[in-house]
């Protein structure tokens, strides 16, 4: 299995500012995924990050709003830019493991005021 450390665990941010969420994995992995979980909702995939290439964004998510970095096989960041209260959610990173399952970070609870 893979152990994923995600930081920060929670934050309260002012609207118009940006927050960068970090995800560190204890093993080298090909694919990393970023999800958003709005209050009381299920998980929605934001983007897939593959090391050495630009992230692939799902419909409804754009790079200007959610820039992603993937500098190596164990680390990724997601930035939530120009935040508004609608961005208040839990953000989770996930890794693909052995092509057959996924493990998740602890999640970041973001509140925008």
């Amino acid at each position, binding site marked *: 299995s893979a152990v994923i450390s995600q930081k920060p665990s929670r934050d309260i941010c002012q609207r118009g500012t940006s927050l960068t969420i970090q995800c560190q994995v204890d093993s080298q992995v090909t*694919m990393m*995924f970023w999800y958003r979980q709005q209050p009381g*909702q*299920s*998980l929605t*995939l934001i983007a*897939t990050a*593959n090391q050495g290439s630009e992230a*692939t964004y799902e419909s409804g998510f754009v790079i200007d709003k959610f820039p992603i970095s993937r500098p190596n096989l164990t680390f990724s960041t997601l930035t939530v830019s120009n935040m508004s209260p609608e961005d208040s959610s*839990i953000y*989770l990173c*996930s890794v*693909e493991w052995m*092509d*057959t*399952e*996924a*493990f*998740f970070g*602890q*999640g970041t*609870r973001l509140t925008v005021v």
Partner: protein
Amino acid sequence: AQTVTQSQPEMSVQEAETVTLSCTYDTSENNYYLFWYKQPPSRQMILVIRQEAYKQQNATENRFSVNFQKAAKSFSLKISDSQLGDTAMYFCAFMKQVGKTGANNLFFGTGTRLTVIP
């Protein structure tokens, strides 16, 4: 497109009793994986159990077992001897088996909030 449906938004069970959570899915894929994830208030998504579609035998993990009906596209989770620590949101998820060049994506249901009553 893959869809995952959990028709029970909330359920409750008495401690030490058995409860079954329902999940159905729709796919045209033949090879895929199904999962149940648990999300307690801590937000951590914890893998509970995993089933490969090509296996007819139902997966079991201690008190957790599944009833996998491939033809019916049904994947229910049975929790036996429920414990207070089982209180959480439970998400059913589908992963299509994509080749090495593609990304494996998880498709989640809307979740079932399970409360274990002392």
